[in-house]
């Protein structure tokens, strides 16, 4: 070994030593060679009840009201001006401009498209069967109609189209299976879909082919849910005559969709009509 080589060897040895030392020091908790397995039995999912039979609720009542905006409603933005669509121009926005429907304020500052529903069926309330008539979810001029839809779980929804252009309907439910199916031009028979699970909040429905197309659906395992009309009014019939908790949900609440009121407690009396008028500020909608 020549003396010239020796410093080089020292360097190499030192490098190797420090590398191995740093590898051992640097990384601590690695994966063990063989993980230990613990078994946990799947719990009994039936809820514990105290055995006392739930008393049936006697009678029903009605709740109505109007949801209004305090202050000046913003002018809805035009998404596609009449006849100015980049694609499918003979269909999308051909008859009228497509406007942003995320906050629709009507006469008397009534807020349309607000969901009002009971989340959990009150104990002792009798729940009628879902209607056998299907709900219709249509599209016209590349706009979903209706913009908001309340259905029962397992109620058939027929997706139709009055547009001479292809669409797809893409749902984003929280608990049910999602759906993403193409809808052919002028589909009149309707493509049937179902939501098999009760949903806790409304969820968006989109058309990926026309990015502005958006609607909101909710499926409930009871009939006590509705949406406000163009003038902000709503009516819920045949509500169980008891203390109920309503959710008030809007797609722009807080700017990104959520509850305007998480728990609206109302007492329903037999054969009576109660009224609940609600007012919201622009700030409630993130504006």
């Amino acid at each position: 070994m020549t003396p010239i080589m020796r410093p080089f060897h020292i360097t190499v040895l030192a490098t190797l030593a420090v590398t191995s030392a740093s590898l051992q020091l640097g990384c601590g908790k690695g994966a063990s060679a063989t993980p230990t397995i613990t078994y946990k039995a799947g719990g009994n999912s039936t809820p514990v009840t105290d055995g006392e039979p739930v008393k049936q609720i006697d009678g029903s009542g009605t709740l109505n009201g109007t949801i209004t905006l305090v202050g000046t409603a913003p002018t809805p933005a035009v998404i596609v001006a009449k006849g100015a669509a980049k694609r499918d121009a003979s269909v999308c926005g051909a008859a009228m401009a497509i406007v942003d429907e995320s906050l629709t304020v009507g006469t008397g500052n009534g807020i349309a498209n607000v969901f009002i529903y009971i989340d959990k069926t009150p104990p002792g309330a009798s729940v009628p069967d879902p209607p056998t008539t299907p709900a219709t979810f249509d599209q016209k001029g590349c706009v979903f109609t209706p913009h908001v839809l309340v259905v029962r779980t397992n109620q058939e929804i027929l997706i139709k189209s009055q547009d001479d252009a292809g669409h797809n309907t893409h749902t984003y439910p929280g608990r049910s299976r999602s759906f993403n199916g193409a809808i052919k031009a002028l589909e009149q028979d309707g493509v049937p879909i179902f939501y098999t699970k009760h949903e806790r909040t409304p969820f968006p429905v989109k058309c990926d082919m026309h990015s502005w197309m958006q609607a909101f659906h909710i499926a409930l395992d009871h009939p006590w849910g509705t949406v406000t009309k163009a003038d902000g009014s709503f009516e819920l019939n045949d509500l169980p005559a008891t203390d109920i908790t309503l959710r008030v949900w809007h797609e722009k609440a807080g700017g990104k969709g959520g509850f305007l009121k998480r728990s609206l407690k109302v007492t329903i009396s037999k054969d009576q009509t109660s009224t609940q008028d609600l007012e919201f500020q622009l700030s409630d909608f993130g504006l």
Partner: protein
Amino acid sequence: MISRRLILPLLALLPLGFGCADYRAEFVNDERVAQLDTSSPVAADNVRNSLLEHFGTPNDLVAWGALPIDYGEITGTVLSAPDAHTLRVSLDTDPTEQFSQVAVVLGDATPAHRTAAHYDATTHTLTLDPLHSTAPTAPTAPTAPGTPIRLIGHKLQAGRKAFMRHCMHCHGVTGDGNGPTARYISNHRLNPQPRDFRRGLFKFTSTKDGYYANREDLRRTVRQGLAGTYMPSFLLMKSKELDAIIEYVRFLAMRGEIERRLLAHLKDLLPDDDGTPPGDLKTLEKELAVDGFAEALADATALVAENWTNAEDPQNGVLPTMARLPDTPQSRLKGRNLFISTKINCAKCHGEGGRGNGGFLDDFQKNPETQQSYDTPGLRDAWHNIIRPRNLTSGIYRGGRRPLDVFRRVSVGIKATPMAGFATNVLEEDRWHIVNYVLSIPVDGAFFDEYGQQYHGRVRLFETHKHKHDDHDHDHDGHDHNKPEPSTTTTPSESQDKKSQP
């Protein structure tokens, strides 16, 4: 001179400066759990603790019976018990070598939970680990002969081992798609990120719209890889190891999905974007994180279990009811006409020439979780990544290139992406025409550009009208006469193309 000699050893010290977080054998929680910590530590703790209780850590896994996972179970009977930690057993199947640290469940009514330390196949002797026991008091009494015994978890164990060896680098210890190699993939804008399993969603399935991937789908993806992506093929892997990996991937997916559903339940407790906690925090905390938490966990578990169980039901698979139609020029042309038709809109994403450059890519999509528009145009998948419609001229199909694979893609779409299923509006026969057309696109000379003109290589052929009358069986139904007449693939242009090949 000395300082120069020290440069290399000093460089070797560099790794000490970097963190090793990627390599820790820990399940990482969703980042929203940390956010939840700032507003409601009770809720955050509940999420963390329930995940730990039901799934454990990578080194101490929990096999939870509530989920449809095959953890690997061997049943048998205790023959005799020389002492509290030794059992002579009769097992229904022989365990493999190096059988240790699996769960041992003794008895039926009030089972005692132990851990196996060692199994001797020649003497049928199972040694129990004296340190691991879930019994309230340290087990001292020997087990009675005739007690049923279940050894649970050898497959989960094998899956974890193999996952750490083969998959963790990209998919991460947690299956969140954030392994140490993922950062290099994310530098490649057009490549998909390693799959984040935590939504329970996998793109390429043989199941109907809305249904999850079944085991066979996951097995196919691991065996074949995903062509055109970083996901390699593991074709040489032994089927036993592969099966264990599939179960472990499902385990991680279910863990992530339950975490996700719990966080959805606790959503209203999360602070605002600027960190402000919700106004009625105490009421909400009581309702969601204390009183309603167990119910939310049970609900999430039931939904996850149901989704993964349904995926295995053969009734929810997609199989054609008619054989593929013969791949004739007429069939391809029918498929082509459907492809460019604005009534079903394939070309709006995939482009008229099939190059994945359709006009919809210029649109700004909305995030379905926040209702806000994304800040860049383009189609998005469920993980909010920008995705490109497949360039059909490349001949690379991520979900498989068998006609059946393409038929399934056309019929039920690609899960968690904007690619819709067309079974709802295109007859099965017509879907086969589309398959025949799509599979013909990469064949030289068989595809058309945005103007309906035929391409071969880079040279555009302007002779499409010339051969129109050669095709006597031409079906002109639904044909768009405003466009130049596309020719079919048996025209002389094809033989001409072949001559120009090197």
